[in-house]
């Protein structure tokens, strides 16, 4: 089973991103109940493994980062979900 999603914050991030088209950092911070530092580290790991896409832009002169799950990320999440369902039965 993929160990990447054993981390609770990463699992929360991927579960959120699978249900939305895109979302920003502040929304992820709110739903994951994490700290900014920890969330940034986990997002960086997911981006490095190409499971999520990161898009940086400026909105009203403030930097804004938007996240989107990639097809690789969707496959990983689906496989992980199947695996934990098997374990659960």
């Amino acid at each position, binding site marked *: 089973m993929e160990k990447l999603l054993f981390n609770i914050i990463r699992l929360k991030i991927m*579960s959120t991103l699978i249900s939305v088209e895109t979302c*920003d950092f502040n929304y992820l911070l709110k739903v994951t109940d994490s700290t900014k530092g920890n969330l940034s580290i986990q997002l960086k790991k997911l981006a490095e493994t190409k499971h999520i896409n990161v898009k940086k832009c400026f*909105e009203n002169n403030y930097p804004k980062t938007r996240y989107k799950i990639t097809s690789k990320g969707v496959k990983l999440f689906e496989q992980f979900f199947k695996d*934990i369902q098997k374990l659960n039965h």
Partner: protein
Amino acid sequence: MESKEQIKIINQMINKTKEQLRPFSLNLIFWGALTSIMSIIYFNMMHLFQTDMHHILFWSVIPFIGMVIMTRYNIKAGRKIGYETHLSRTIKIIWISFGIAWAFIILLSALHGFSGGIIQFLILFTCATCLLISGILIKYLPVTLGGCSILIILFLSALFPEISYTSINLISLTLGFTVPGLFLYFHKSND
């Protein structure tokens, strides 16, 4: 972490993402009200529109300003929410397609000199279809019925040509946009 706990977390996270339909409802109310007011002005002050260009300018400049205002509002609302769902993206694409179709109809009517009745029919038919699809997608009956009501009114207007343009516009836009928009705005799932 146990698998049961992991499934629980996944469920919790997915349930936290709710469809935000309030911006869509405000769009419906805005367009319903704007086009109804425009219809009343247009059909009661027909003498002000001397040339074909006057008619086209009236029905293109004001809706274009409306589109700019609502696009700005939608962008701001999207930023405030912080996320975009798959469904809201689909709805957005449907209404962008309507905007393109609307511009195409206006352009064609300017080039070929279509009559007011044909322009009205084409625009109302296109927006009824978009409304119907949106209603089915968001699974909200008043919006679906709004789309159906515009189609029925268009069918009746074809059967009874003596019905005035003002009546067709006012009834169809009120039933198709304003009423479903208000229903959606006050719907409990928006809270």
